[in-house]
């Protein structure tokens, strides 16, 4: 396991990270050089930079069939990390495009730089193979996001949002770090891939291991906003700038799942019988809490926040199934969810920007003001509700199939009952969009070009994942196979 000599594979493996670092530095420098009225172009730069990194990574970083540990076992270069890195880069690029028309992000170089920095942290989270690396990566992701959540200076809600996110994040990180330290104490190594073997030989009581697992799970549950560590999500989403809320609910959640999958399957395979029910219960609670609370929301951002809590519950079904199909399903679901939720938050961005409100009542008459926008919202909400021909449908079928395949029929049934509740409130929103009228209904909404591009990408993604899902399914299978 010792690190080999320095070679080209190691550099290629961290090509995305190098690119992100360079992009972040470039954005910071240009932010100083450019005049105020040019700064909006930083959004184009960030988005195209991220897209370029995606392409380069796709060409040069695609992992070999055999996973490799690089940099002294700090990172693992495998398909799981690669696929997740692509997801993060895509999400970040879309977020940059949405940010361009959202005050106060649009002309602030720091915002783009922080976005890139958080993405860098996420890519490291997905590939971290060492406890220390993992912790650093999580913090690297979280700290820029704390700042971004509180980015609207002088706005009490945004400040509250940033601060709340920080407090929750710091506390759960501390608990998780305690778990990490116990693991190190038991095993004498921080290498994730060596821990399992040592823990098994070490004759530790199951009780101890489960206790450690639960400490670690606290940190991960916070990241994916699973019950009971979901309380921050609605307040933080509501207060933070909308594109950032979209980013938090998608890419940041995906990063949490990347870590969760790897950690549970690699470090704790021997206590599977204990944590599968635990995870199934967390998943159930997450779905139920998210969906029932979403029912009562009158603010679309909060509604989407609760819905995204519930969505995490569906993805946990796939993880709790602990099978190649289950992980495949979760990865596929995450991807579909990422493009879908970004589209939904994109609509909220544009409506909030024009009407100054995120309340549901601001959406009345939207289908008359902006039929195209209403149609995008329709696609996004139905995909979240798991209706064909959109990506969410395939994701949901895969997740339920995985649960049934692993004999968790009760979990699939609960998931399905929840998807019915979810459809109810998604339809309620669509009803306001299509049926209710407002005084402004004849004033068209201005739709900027950057936004239209990002939205077009999302809608195409949703439709592709819902119809021609073969290629992405194959990717998800490959990603899942690096855990088994």
């Amino acid at each position: 396991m010792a690190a080999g000599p320095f070679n080209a594979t190691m550099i290629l493996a961290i090509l995305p990270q190098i690119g992100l670092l360079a992009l972040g530095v470039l954005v910071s420098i240009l932010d100083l050089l450019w005049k105020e009225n040019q700064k909006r172009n930083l959004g184009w730069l960030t988005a195209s930079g991220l897209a370029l990194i995606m392409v380069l990574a796709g060409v040069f970083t695609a992992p070999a069939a055999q996973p490799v540990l690089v940099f002294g076992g700090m990172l693992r270069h495998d398909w799981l990390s690669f696929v997740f890195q692509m997801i993060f880069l895509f999400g970040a690029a879309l977020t940059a495009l949405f940010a361009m028309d959202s005050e106060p992000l649009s002309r602030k170089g720091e915002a783009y730089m922080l976005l890139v920095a958080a993405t860098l942290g996420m890519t490291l989270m997905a590939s971290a193979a060492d406890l220390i690396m993992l912790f650093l990566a999580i913090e690297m992701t979280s700290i820029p996001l704390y700042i971004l959540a509180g980015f609207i200076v002088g706005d009490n809600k945004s400040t509250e949002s940033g601060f709340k996110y920080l407090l929750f994040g710091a506390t759960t990180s501390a608990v998780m770090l305690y778990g990490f330290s116990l693991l190190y104490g038991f095993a004498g190594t921080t290498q994730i891939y060596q821990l399992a073997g040592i823990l098994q030989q070490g004759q530790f009581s199951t009780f101890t291991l489960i206790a450690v697992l639960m400490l670690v799970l606290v940190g991960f549950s916070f990241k994916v906003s699973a019950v009971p560590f979901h309380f921050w999500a609605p307040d933080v989403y509501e207060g933070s700038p909308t594109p950032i809320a979209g980013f938090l609910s998608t890419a940041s959640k995906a990063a949490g799942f990347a870590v969760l999958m790897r950690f549970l399957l690699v470090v704790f395979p021997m206590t599977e019988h204990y944590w599968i029910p635990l995870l199934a219960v967390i998943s159930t609670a997450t779905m139920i809490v998210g969906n029932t609370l979403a029912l009562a929301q009158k603010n679309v951002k909060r509604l989407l926040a609760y819905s995204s809590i519930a969505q995490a519950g569906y993805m946990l079904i796939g993880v709790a199934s602990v099978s190649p199909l289950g992980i495949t399903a979760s990865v596929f679901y995450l991807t579909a969810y990422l493009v879908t939720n970004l589209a939904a938050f994109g609509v909220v961005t544009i409506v909030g920007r024009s009407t100054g409100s995120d309340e549901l009542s601001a959406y009345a008459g939207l289908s008359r003001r902006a039929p195209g926008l209403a149609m995008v919202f329709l696609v996004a909400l139905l995909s979240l509700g798991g209706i064909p021909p959109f990506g969410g449908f395939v994701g949901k079928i895969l997740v339920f199939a995985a649960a049934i395949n692993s004999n968790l029929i009760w979990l699939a049934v609960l998931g399905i009952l929840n998807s019915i509740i979810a459809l109810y409130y998604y339809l309620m929103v669509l009803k306001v969009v299509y049926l209710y009228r407002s005084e402004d209904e004849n004033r068209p909404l201005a739709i900027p070009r950057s936004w239209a591009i990002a939205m077009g990408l999302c809608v195409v993604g949703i439709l592709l994942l819902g119809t021609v899902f073969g290629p992405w399914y194959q990717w998800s299978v490959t990603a899942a196979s690096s855990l088994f």
Partner: protein
Amino acid sequence: MQFPILSVIVFTPLLAGLLIVLMPPARKTEVKVIALAAASVSLLLAIWTYFSYNVSAGGYQFVERLPWLPQLGISYAMGVDGISMPLVLLAGVVVFCGALISWGIDDRPREFYAFLMFLATSVFGVFVSLDLFQLFFFFEIAVFPKYLMIVVWGYPKTREYGAMKLTLYLFIGSVVALIGALAMYFASGLHTFDLIALEKANFSASFQYIWFPVVFFGFAILGGIFPFHSWAPDGHVAAPTAVSMLLAGVEMKVGAFAALRVAIMLLPQGARDWAWLILILATVNVIYGAFIAMIQTDFKYVIGFSSVSHMGLVLLGFATLSAEGLTGAGMQMFSHGIMTALFFAVVGMAYDRTHTRDISKLGGLIKKMPWAGVGFIIGGLVSMGMPGFSGFTAEFPIFMGIWRSTPPIFAIIAVVGVVITAAYILRVVSKVFFGELSPEFEQGVGDVTVLDKVAIGLLSVLMIALGVLPSLMVPMVQSGVEHVLRLLGGA
């Protein structure tokens, strides 16, 4: 490879819908023309396919098959047999008539017609699916057009309630059936969603006993089975006319058809185990639906509940698991689809002109709109099962099947249902179309439009044609039923 005619039937409306969505909203007439053109293409191709179907050969014809997700055994597979072919024709006719009679829609016709086209793709898609995944795919596409069309263009007083109730009921049904379908997929061990392959899966008796009710009742909710029928009248009444026609005329058959195709054909042993329950519930459907229809004061609710009653006959036909019963059920699906589409069309036309559906206020309308009146009377005769009309061709075999395969009490009760049907139909006809024309309607009420007459004429002719010449359809349905019986006998 032959011309993929079924794909063209299914996807022409979808493409038209997408095209309509991309058009500028002000182009109201062009939108309608495009939609009607697409509906005509699908209808003409459906007619062509219907008459090209080789009845003596039977089995699945016009089969298309492409891999979709081979890793999971999902394929894109289309084909029709003797049972689904008439339903494809039914969908073609009703979509075409629905597009015709909605010509007067002025509020956002672009969205209305786009959603109508998406709904058409969904129903066509279910009828021709030979793959279980694909069947669900098309089945659930219908969720949002249904909901939005009812909620936006529906009857203002009840549309929000009716739309949500209908959508949630149907979604619940389909996801419950989905669980069963996934269980079948894994239990078969064949790693395929192919319906033809799954027919030979030989599921164990206990598996079938557990999962048959899940799948059957999941789909049968959409078929309006008691006690899960209450979405139907509420939803149909709240819906705009074209959607009522499609929902009652075609969507309910989608449910019944899927229950037959997936539950009965794939789990035949389960069907035999549970036939008694279907029999009881469907009998309740027939009687209860008819009684409730009898006491309605709202014209549209009468038709809404009559659908519940008539769909009960379809399910009764299924429950007999006999050649006569299933053939009758297949015929009834077509006959009732056409009939109820005509009923809802006429109700819509009357309401549009009088602005009331209260039976006590209506009267003498036949003087003002003779086409609508005659059409309704023809529909009524079909509904009562009069010889010479398609209703007789459909209901008579069902009663034969019930009499032969079940205790006589069920046949007696079901026939009583027909008597009640005659009572409520005659009551509505006499009150609404004959009797005194209220003075307030003397002036304001005009005749139906030419497009309406085309729709009424087409639907009426079909019902009479099938009554006079049952051989146009019965042999085809029989060829499909033979296959079902082979599965039922061979399990």
